[in-house]
């Protein structure tokens, strides 16, 4: 059955994610209010400014519905600001209203200011996902959040690390990246999210 993915469109690079999903033959809808959540099979939370998106989640009554959908197994992929909003713990910013769900600690902007933004070749090794390990994945890190190396809790699988810190993680139905796969033209990670986390999510345990 054809899947529809919601893309949180409060602020940030949501259009780029929709382009990637479109190129993979998946339909996507912009999510700006709770009504937009009806009928979606998964959600992407894009990069942008996490403080801005957080305020809008509260303002437009999306925070609680999203928490409950994700707790109940809705597949979600958060990149950069999206990762921050999915983190259970934040260094210095723990009062930022957010969705949570990933049992780990994230430090905002911890890779530095914009002049420290960078690209790096990432080696992603996921058992059974040979297409991802065939060649390096270009990680684009922009004022990126850092997943604290010793802050990864129970239930979180680290799928890729760079310079000793996790940069791609999964906990059940939740996938988080501190970089921006939507800016590279490399669709492998979105494809993997769709075929391994979204597909089968409705039918119980297959997502693991």
């Amino acid at each position, binding site marked *: 059955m054809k899947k529809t993915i919601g893309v949180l469109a409060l*602020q*940030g690079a949501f259009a780029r994610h929709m382009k990637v999903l479109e190129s993979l033959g998946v339909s996507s809808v912009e999510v700006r209010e709770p009504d937009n959540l009806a009928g979606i099979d998964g959600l992407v939370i894009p990069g942008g*400014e996490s*403080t801005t998106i957080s305020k809008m989640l509260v303002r437009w009554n999306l925070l609680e519905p999203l928490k409950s959908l994700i707790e109940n197994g809705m597949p979600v992929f958060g990149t950069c600001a999206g990762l921050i909003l999915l983190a259970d713990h934040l260094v210095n910013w723990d009062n930022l209203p957010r969705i949570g769900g990933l049992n780990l600690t994230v430090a*905002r902007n911890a890779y530095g200011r914009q002049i420290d*933004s960078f690209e790096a070749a990432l080696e992603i090794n996921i058992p059974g996902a040979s297409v991802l390990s065939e060649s390096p994945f270009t990680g*684009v890190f922009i004022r990126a959040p850092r997943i604290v190396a010793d802050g990864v809790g129970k239930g979180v699988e680290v799928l890729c690390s760079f310079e000793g810190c996790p940069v791609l993680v999964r906990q059940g139905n939740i996938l988080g990246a501190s970089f921006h796969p939507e800016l590279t033209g490399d669709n492998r990670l979105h494809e993997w999210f769709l075929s391994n986390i979204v597909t089968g999510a409705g039918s119980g345990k297959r997502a693991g």
Partner: protein
Amino acid sequence: MSEHKTWSGRQSSTWRTKVGLAEMLKGGVIMDVVTSEQAKLAENAGASAVMALERVPADIRADGGVSRMSDPRMIKGIQEIVSIPVMAKCRIGHFMEARILEALGVDFIDESEVLTPADDQYHVDKNLFKVPFVCGCRNLGEALRRIGEGAAMIRTKGEAGTGDVVEAVRHMRTLMDEIRTLTLLPRDQLMTAARDMGAPYDLVEEVARIGRLPVPNFSAGGVATPADAALMMHLGAESVFVGSGIFKSGDPARRAKAIVEAVTHYDDPVKLAEISEDLGEPMVGINCDDLGEKERLAVRGW
């Protein structure tokens, strides 16, 4: 700009990381602030970035004189107090101001017509910098010249410090019309089009092919209300800069928040009505028709 390299470690300040930050600022509002307190207010209202400057454009107009890069101490104060990106302005062609701003670690430099130009012929060679630049334009030729020099974001100029949106609309309509026209031209007419608009051929060819600017396209200069912001988003802006419109209004905190909300819900008039309610006095403003040629900031840029 190269795609597939073999490298180890980090490749810093690539074209993709520069344009990437502009991508992250889409669907948001970048607010002019002159103090740390204003910067904090902007962040609390949901601004996706702040522009640190000494005087908002309305005051630059009122005060006259030469307008320059801000005091580094003031910029540092703002960098310390907010977590969102901090931008700052340098004068057109003033590459030393730009290098100072880069040394301060600002996240974006606006080579801006709002300040007094330092060079009446040449802009900064922005390709030489690690920090990304945004530049103003009134039309496609100007936009592509700036991108050719290395700008990673374009904003239409409007007429800063007026609170009158008419010039912002004119510039955005002109830009979008010229883009649409290019997409219809046969390939053998593109070189002449490039000559006529004074733009690099490769960028003209790219715009004709992709039907948009190769970098994000924001709007500036004259936005004073949530409806203004929504209007600019409909006309093609991907984000909105608001200068004097917030801190020259009666209730900056409410107005700032409302404009942020209006950019997200620009296509929802029912929500916009709710958002626009009871915001207090907007900035008084100046009708652009009453400005003399010498008072117009948008004509600065070559």
